[in-house]
């Protein structure tokens, strides 16, 4: 069974997986958590491919309810956005595997086969690799954003104005301070963020959501 909030995604993935001679996909593709659970109750798929984010419930509850209707080790989560807690939570609740939506159709088919034949260590290793990648990304984000969050509201205001390409004189006029003070702000901003240029500060600030 393939269940995803996006009907078109569920339709095309099902069609692609159904082409494999050893995989048969149900023709109903639930798009909400309650629908998914109903299908699992009535049709008892061997393997369920689920998106982590489905309307109808908070996702930890989804994983708990889903696990009731299908034996442990027979749910594979497919997700676009996934933090480490989501992945570890899903695995702790008995999911067989977790694949990002950047995977290939063949990877998904292989994961289904492995889950079905209970080759769980292979899937678990894949999840470990995924967690490793996520950790690296989260560590990077934290390193970059920690520095941005040391900026004062005034300094962020300066960054916001610089990002529009306005020259120092205009910024000074807009904030009601001297050009010298603006330049001093900029020097302090560069020091605090350890950035190599104003351009880099802007990129960092935007990346961390400190400016829009």
């Amino acid at each position, binding site marked *: 069974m393939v269940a995803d909030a996006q*009907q*078109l*995604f569920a339709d*095309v993935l099902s069609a692609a997986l159904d082409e494999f001679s050893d995989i048969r996909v149900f023709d109903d593709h639930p798009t909400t958590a309650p629908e998914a659970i109903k299908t699992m109750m009535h049709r008892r798929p061997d393997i369920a491919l689920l998106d982590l984010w489905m309307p109808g419930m908070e996702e930890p509850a989804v994983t708990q309810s889903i696990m009731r209707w299908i034996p442990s080790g027979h749910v594979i989560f497919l997700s676009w956005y996934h933090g480490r807690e989501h992945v570890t939570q899903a695995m702790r609740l008995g999911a067989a595997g977790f694949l990002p939506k950047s995977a*290939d*159709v063949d990877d998904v088919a292989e994961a289904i086969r492995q889950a079905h034949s209970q080759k769980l260590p292979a899937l678990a290793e894949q999840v470990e690799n995924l967690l490793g990648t996520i950790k690296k990304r989260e560590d990077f984000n934290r390193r970059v954003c920690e520095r941005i969050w040391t900026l004062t509201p005034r300094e962020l205001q300066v960054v916001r104005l610089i990002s529009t*390409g306005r020259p120092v004189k205009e910024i000074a006029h807009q904030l009601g301070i001297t050009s010298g003070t603006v330049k001093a702000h900029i020097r302090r901003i560069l020091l605090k963020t350890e950035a190599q240029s*104003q*351009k880099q500060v802007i990129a960092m600030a935007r990346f961390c959501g400190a400016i829009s």
Partner: protein
Amino acid sequence: MTIVHPGVVIADSQKLFARALGLALQRAGGLEVLETSATSGLETIKMIAEFEPRCNLLILDYWIGGMTGPAATRAVLRFSPAPQVVLTGWFHTTVEVKEGFLAGAAAFVSKSARLSDFLELTRRVVQGDSSLYMLDGKGGLQAVPRPQGKGDEAWDRLAALTVREIEVLSLLAFAPVEKVAKQLSISLGTLRNHISNILRKTQARSQIEALDIARRVGLIDS
């Protein structure tokens, strides 16, 4: 003249979706899938230019990385006017839909749509149906009136940029000039030429201002 096997390029931030959709279009739609691995606006522009004139259809994710859907649509059509562009979205607003059509898209599809309706849409678009279409899970396939207006006027300031210049600008948003030159395998001098051309064309006073204009128009998107 009916094209026997229309060529399609699929550009989506989710590779799995692009791959699976490609398979469906090939098997059930009789289309020739040229490319499904474009995951950024810039990659899409370059690939379409490469496949010209074999590309008749582009299925483009509204949230394709690096650019917004309308900006990517305008850019693609400016360099390669031939293909029909179908934008795919998810919970998109009426403003986003309008921007997409003003940018030149032939259709706007929500990912809540059913595959069977999507196949019908591609059939019509590829056969040269000049109506504009919207497709979603609730209303099905519907022809819609052409929206009035010109769209983002700020786009005009960026309209004269070449693909290379757009690429340079996208990289400059995140890296210093030395790194960008290395990444593009060009000399610092060549890069500085590109930058001065960009500033001249966009009438910007600095790299930062040029980047800001590009970002406001959706040509650069983090």
